[in-house]
C-alpha cells in the first residue's frame, strides 16, 4: 500500500503546517488588538496639536517659519518608507514598496533628486536586491514604536529642511482605517501643511506669543505625523498577517479534506481488491 503511506505522510505534514498558521493567526490577532489600542491612544495628542496649531496659524505668520516654507521646486526630496521586519504578511510589504516606487517615479519625473530612508528589513532587503542606494536604513524599530523612534527618524531631516538641504519629506506607510482596510499611502510631512481650524478661531491669551508657541509646536506636529504613521503601519502589518494566516489555515483545511478523501478511497479500493482475491482463490480451490 505504497500510495496510502505516501498520502498519510502528506496529511501529517499539512496538519502540522495548519497548526503553525493557526497559531500565527491568533498571535497576529492579539498583537493587532494591542497595536490598534496604541493607534487609538495616539489620537487625542494629534487632535490637540492640530487644534492649537489651527487656531494660531494664519498665513501672515507662514513666511517666518522655516518649517512652513513652500519651496517652488522640490529639488531634493526624502522618502521615508516604512516596512515590517518580518514576512508572512501577504502582500503587505510588496504593496508598500510598490507605493514607494510609484512615488519615487513621480518625484523623479518632476525632476527631483530622491533620497531614500527605509525602515524595516523587508524594504531594505528589496532595495538591496534591486541595487538602489538607500541613504538611511533602519531595522531597529520594533513593533512597539515610540515617540522617540519617530523623532530619531525625522529630526535630522527637519534640521536639513530648515537649512534648505531637502525641500520635501514624504512618509510611505499603511493607514489603519480598520482591521480590514489598510491601504498603503504616501503623505507629505514637510513642508508642513497647517491644519485648518474647525469652528473658527478662539480668542486666546498667548504666552509667550503665537510665534513662540508655533516654533515649539510645529516640530512636535511633524514628529507626531511620523509617529502616527509608525503606529498605524504596525497595526496594518499585524492585520495583514492575520488575514494571510487565516487564508493559509483555511487552505490547509481544504487540502486536508481532499487528501483524506483520496486516502480513504485508496484504502477502500485495496480492501475490495483483497476480498476479490480471496474469493477468487477460494473458488479456484473448490474447482
Amino acid at each position, binding site marked *: 500500500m505504497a500510495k496510502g503511506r505516501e498520502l498519510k505522510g502528506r496529511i501529517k505534514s499539512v496538519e502540522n503546517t495548519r497548526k503553525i498558521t493557526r497559531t500565527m493567526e491568533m498571535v497576529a490577532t492579539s498583537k493587532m488588538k494591542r497595536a490598534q489600542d*496604541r493607534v487609538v*491612544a*495616539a489620537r*487625542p*495628542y494629534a487632535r*490637540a*496639536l492640530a*487644534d*492649537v496649531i489651527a*487656531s*494660531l496659524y494664519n498665513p501672515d505668520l507662514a513666511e517666518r517659519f522655516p518649517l512652513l516654507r513652500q519651496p517652488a521646486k522640490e529639488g531634493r526630496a526624502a522618502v521615508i518608507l516604512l516596512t515590517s521586519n518580518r514576512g508572512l504578511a501577504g502582500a503587505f510589504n510588496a504593496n508598500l514598496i510598490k507605493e514607494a516606487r510609484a512615488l519615487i517615479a513621480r518625484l523623479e519625473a518632476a525632476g527631483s533628486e530622491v533620497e531614500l530612508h527605509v525602515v524595516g528589513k523587508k524594504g531594505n532587503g528589496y532595495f538591496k536586491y534591486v541595487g538602489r542606494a538607500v541613504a538611511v536604513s533602519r531595522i531597529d524599530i520594533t513593533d512597539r514604536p*515610540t*515617540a522617540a523612534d*519617530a523623532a530619531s527618524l525625522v529630526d535630522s531631516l527637519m534640521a536639513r529642511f530648515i537649512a534648505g538641504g531637502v525641500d520635501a519629506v514624504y512618509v510611505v506607510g499603511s493607514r489603519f482605517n480598520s482591521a480590514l482596510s489598510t491601504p498603503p499611502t504616501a503623505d507629505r510631512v514637510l513642508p508642513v501643511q497647517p491644519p485648518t481650524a474647525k469652528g473658527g478661531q*478662539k*480668542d*486666546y*491669551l*498667548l*504666552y*509667550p506669543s503665537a510665534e*513662540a*508657541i508655533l516654533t*515649539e*509646536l510645529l516640530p*512636535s506636529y511633524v*514628529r*507626531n505625523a511620523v*509617529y502616527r504613521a509608525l503606529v498605524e503601519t504596525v497595526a496594518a502589518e499585524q492585520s495583514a498577517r492575520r488575514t494571510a494566516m487565516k487564508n493559509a489555515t483555511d487552505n490547509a483545511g481544504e487540502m486536508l479534506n481532499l487528501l483524506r478523501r483520496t486516502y480513504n478511497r485508496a484504502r477502500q479500493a485495496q480492501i475490495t481488491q483483497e476480498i476479490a482475491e480471496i474469493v477468487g482463490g477460494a473458488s479456484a480451490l473448490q474447482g
Partner: protein
Amino acid sequence: MALLKVSVISPEATLFEGEAASVTAPAFDGEVGILPMHAPMVTTLGAGMLRIGGGAERFNVQGGFLQVVDNVVRVVTEQASRA
C-alpha cells in the same frame, strides 16, 4: 462652582483624564495656576511639576503646551511621567 475638565496627553497615551478644581503647571517662565472660568489661553511649558487638584495628581513634564478653553484644560507634552 464649575470644575475643570483636565487631561494630560502624551503622544503615546492619555495619561490622565478627570475633573479638578485647580491645575498648577510649570509654564515657560514660572508656575501658572488655573481655576475654573479662566479665559481661553495657550502657553508653552517648561520643565517641572504639574499638579492637578492641589497635588492629588502629579506629573513631571518637560516642554509641550497647555491649553485652556471653556473650563477644559489640556496639557499636551511629549515628555510626561507620573510623579
